[in-house]
């Protein structure tokens, strides 16, 4: 069932945030909306939640047309980048909010809140105020609060964007494990390709208000549909007239069939990786970035200034540079 989005358009004044979006988000999966800031992905998420209305088009959640249903009756769990914690309520009260609005019996609320706090590892913080929690804890509280209403879909808007790198990584793994246990249709917005590749079952790449590509992380990585998708999923370089990833380039010190050849003009070592810049002798071509591991560089006997021949590795994805 999942979420069916048909023909959605949205403009803010002259700015077109979304144009003609058709998208089918599978039920029970973990889907990432990936793209640069201002590309429209958050707007799409907010339209699904009912926090924003589309200028045209329809939204269907679990088979129910919710296009004109107000946010409070969509039964959607929403998690904000900056937590949106209810500051004057304790953690337990925050989590209980949706259930109290639904006028569930007190005992049931207490039981459910205890369960959820255990799920997000905040049992011992039940009586604290949000101000007394760390960012990561606040976001877990917000997640418990959203899950409390047993939403038909869970939507997360840059959920880890405000956290520092280490906590972000922990929470990302934790979200994946949580989803494997809960199985609620989940959509999260991110501009971090690593986050999307690592956590999501399906990735929707959105840029300039349009969908660039939809697919599994493997699909996107191995068969990028456009130079934008290839470029957004990691570093790229130009080899001849094609875009390619720097580690997908075969480098050789002996003459062989090659796209370009030239001297190694820059040599930067970053940990286990060495980043090279090769300036082709054919001046029609731009300098090429090549990435090799330290072991490879040793095996090939590479040194700064060496003349090398470059060609794409077998099976490496590349697209024509525009």
């Amino acid at each position, binding site marked *: 069932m999942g979420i069916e989005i048909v023909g959605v358009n949205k403009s803010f004044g002259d700015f077109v945030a979304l144009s003609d979006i058709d998208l089918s988000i599978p039920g029970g999966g973990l889907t990432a909306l990936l793209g640069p800031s201002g590309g429209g992905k958050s707007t799409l998420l907010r339209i699904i939640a009912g926090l924003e209305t589309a200028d045209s088009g329809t939204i269907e959640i679990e088979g129910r047309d919710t296009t004109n249903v107000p946010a*409070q009756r969509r039964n959607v769990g929403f998690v904000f980048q900056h937590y949106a914690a209810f500051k004057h309520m304790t953690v337990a009260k925050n989590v209980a909010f949706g259930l109290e609005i639904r006028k569930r019996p007190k005992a049931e609320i207490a039981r459910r809140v205890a369960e959820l706090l255990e799920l997000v590892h905040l049992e011992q913080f039940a009586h604290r105020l949000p101000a007394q929690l760390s960012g990561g804890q606040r976001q877990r509280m917000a997640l418990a609060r959203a899950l409390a209403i047993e939403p038909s879909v869970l939507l997360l808007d840059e959920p880890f964007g405000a956290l520092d790198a280490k906590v972000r990584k922990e929470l990302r793994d934790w979200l994946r494990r949580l989803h494997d246990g809960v199985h609620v249709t989940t959509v999260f917005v991110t501009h971090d390709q690593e986050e999307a590749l690592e956590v999501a079952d399906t990735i929707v790449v959105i840029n300039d208000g349009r969908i660039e590509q939809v697919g599994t992380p493997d699909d996107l990585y191995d068969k990028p549909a456009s130079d934008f998708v290839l470029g957004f999923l990691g570093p790229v370089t130009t080899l001849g007239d094609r875009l390619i990833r720097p580690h997908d380039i075969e480098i050789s010190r002996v003459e062989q069939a090659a796209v370009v050849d030239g001297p190694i003009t820059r040599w930067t070592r970053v940990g286990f990786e060495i980043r090279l810049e090769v300036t082709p002798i054919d001046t029609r071509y731009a300098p090429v970035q090549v990435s090799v591991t330290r072991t490879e560089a040793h095996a090939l006997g590479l040194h700064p200034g060496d003349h090398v021949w470059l060609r794409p590795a077998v099976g490496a994805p590349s697209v024509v540079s525009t």
Partner: protein
Amino acid sequence: MASHPTARGQRPTPATHARRALVLGYLFFLVVWPVSLVVTRTFGDGNHLAAALQDPAVVFAVQMTVVVAFWAVVINTVFGVGMSLLIVRYDFWGKSVLNTLLDLPLSVSPVVIGLALLLAYGPRDGYFAPVLDAIDLQVIFSVPGIIMATAFVSLPLVIREVVPVLQEIGTEQEQAARSLGAGGWQTFRRITLPSIRWALVYGVVLSLARSLGEFGAVKIVSGNISQQTQTATLVVEEKYLEFERGAAYATSFLLTLIAVAALVIVTVLRPKEERV
């Protein structure tokens, strides 16, 4: 407290003490000492307070002031919260004009306000006189007019306290409440109102203090008729001019007492972690 470090963590120098003395001296000679004189005169030669409480004109006026201040505060609280939400959450044509107009009651002399209300709602040549006559409602020289004038002068106080807080809290909490199933009224009562409650309390206390002390506008619209439309501040003036100074001091003392009590109650009620 003498050994308490200064704000920047330095040891207090003679200059620090001098600056403190200057500020405290200023406050003392401008505020504390004169007000304390009202208190000492009230109880100085015989108990003027007890005598004043026997005077029907004084008792009536104090009751009138309390009633008028109560309604003015209620009106300003309801409209103030509504206006604040309008200003912060919505964009509309003429918003900046409205914003400027809201400060008018504080910048225009209350006497002018009284005169303006008289012209608009006066009984004979007032703009709305025919309408008010028809429904047999007397506004000017009567309680509704006094409440209007009082509400007018204290109009911006709640708004100016609430608006910055509303701007600071943003709309995310309200959106979260909506997504969790709360309707408009539930969101307001459970999320917005608790978030602005202290700003609202301050606004209410300031409005109350302003309403209790209003003199100029009320003097014009009330007609100043003893035991009919006379408020406490008007009684103070009348008694003072009629050389019943004891009654004037006692009434002033009562006005001060109510205002100070309101401030003390707020300070006590305010939870510890929110104190500055």
